[in-house]
């Protein structure tokens, strides 16, 4: 469960919030709105990459407002996927597993299982530069889920893909919904989340409103 209470954040002349919202575990939540409306900022606040001026970020009944990003039970898929270009696909997926202190054998098993789940088993030894947009998205998803986060944040996960790849990538996101993963998906394109979302919010000029 993700609970935001009276979140307020200011950056230069932009104000986000106050935002109060409660998202149940296992839901697929969509937040759509135009560029510059504060969608990505909201995700960064939940991830701990930005600290709000006031309000609370509660995940699974624990207050994470002042806790650093690395200690939050959150996975994040960045708009450009932010894959580490100097590492192979396997090393990217293994990164959070190594950080959590798993041994080599356990890392191999976990990364292998994730690769299978996202149909990238054949890509594990490949470098990032040789991957297509859709493959990159799946690698980034596998990496974001490797440390089993309570909530997965998707920042415009389909915007970097061309039309042909979007449908395939959208199916990949469907896997998350089927698995009961709590997901917050922000996008400027409402159509891309109509089939996926259990609940839709609209973000406009830093304010969040429930649509359906």
């Amino acid at each position, binding site marked *: 469960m993700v609970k935001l209470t009276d979140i307020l954040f200011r950056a230069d002349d932009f104000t986000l919030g106050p935002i109060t919202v409660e998202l149940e575990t296992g839901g697929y939540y969509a937040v759509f709105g135009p560029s510059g409306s504060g969608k990505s900022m909201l995700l960064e606040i939940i*991830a*701990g*990459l930005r600290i709000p001026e006031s309000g609370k970020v509660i995940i699974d009944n624990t207050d994470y407002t002042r806790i*650093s*990003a*690395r*200690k*939050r039970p*959150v*996975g*994040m898929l*960045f708009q*450009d996927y*932010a894959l*580490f*270009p*100097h590492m192979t696909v396997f090393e990217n997926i293994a*990164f*959070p597993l190594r*950080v*959590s202190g798993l041994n080599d054998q356990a890392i191999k098993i976990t990364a292998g299982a994730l690769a299978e789940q996202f149909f990238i088993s054949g890509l594990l030894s490949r470098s990032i530069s040789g991957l297509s947009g859709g493959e990159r998205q799946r690698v980034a998803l596998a*990496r*974001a889920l*490797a*440390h089993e986060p309570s909530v997965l944040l998707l920042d415009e996960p389909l915007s970097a893909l061309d039309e042909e790849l979007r449908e395939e990538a959208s199916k990949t996101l469907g896997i998350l919904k089927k698995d009961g993963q709590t997901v917050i998906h922000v996008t400027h394109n409402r159509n891309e989340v109509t089939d996926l979302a259990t609940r839709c919010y609209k973000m406009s000029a830093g304010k969040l409103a429930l649509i359906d």
Partner: protein
Amino acid sequence: MRARDNFNFTHTIFLLLGGVALLFIFAPLAGMFLSVNAPNLFDAATDKVVGNSIILTLIISFAATSISALFAIPLAYILARKKFPFKGVIEAIVDLPIVIPHSAAGIAILGLISRDSALGSLASSFGLNLVGSPFAIALAMAFVSIPFLINSARDGFAAVPPRLEQAAETLGASKIRTFIKISLPLAGRSVVSGLLLMFARGMSEFGAIVIVAYHPMTTPVLIFDRFNSFGLAYARPVAVIFVTVTLILFIALRIYQKKRW
């Protein structure tokens, strides 16, 4: 073939002008190599004083670069990533050794390590004289060459997308782990370039070193000494040997750097 097709009039003019710059660098060095006397070159090549000075120069420059890196690389990262008051002043301070005369740098370092200074008197109490020591040479080399490392590394870190560091954080990595595993490898090419530049600049330093330590003689000081005492015919072979050694070393290091990064 496409490159040749695109070679227009402007490029031809630029090539001619650039050729003059290239000739300006190459001609004096080529002249020095061509005019060296073979028996003198052989004598210099078998002269232990020359050999020892080259080894001393390489070792001290390597040590000065390695130790400076521990301080210069973190500073470069902070300059690349953080905004803070008087950042411009700090960047200007970093560039100071490039703009001041190196003899002045030598005088400044001499003030730092002479027996009258806090550091010098502390060393004296242990029976050490810092002036005229390898330590003084290392300080002089580091002082004049550290801006090359800091500036190159700073540019390298600035080119690493902050998003990648944020991604590492959301994956559970601490700041230091993110630096070691993400930022440093991705800025690696620039950092290594900076290390090479610093090493090379330190090795070739004369002005500051000659003030803080005439002895033990680094090769640039030895070249000056031979020129002053015996003339051009005896200084030139030492210069040719030193330039050859440094060229071989740097070509090898550059090839390794290109293969690795």
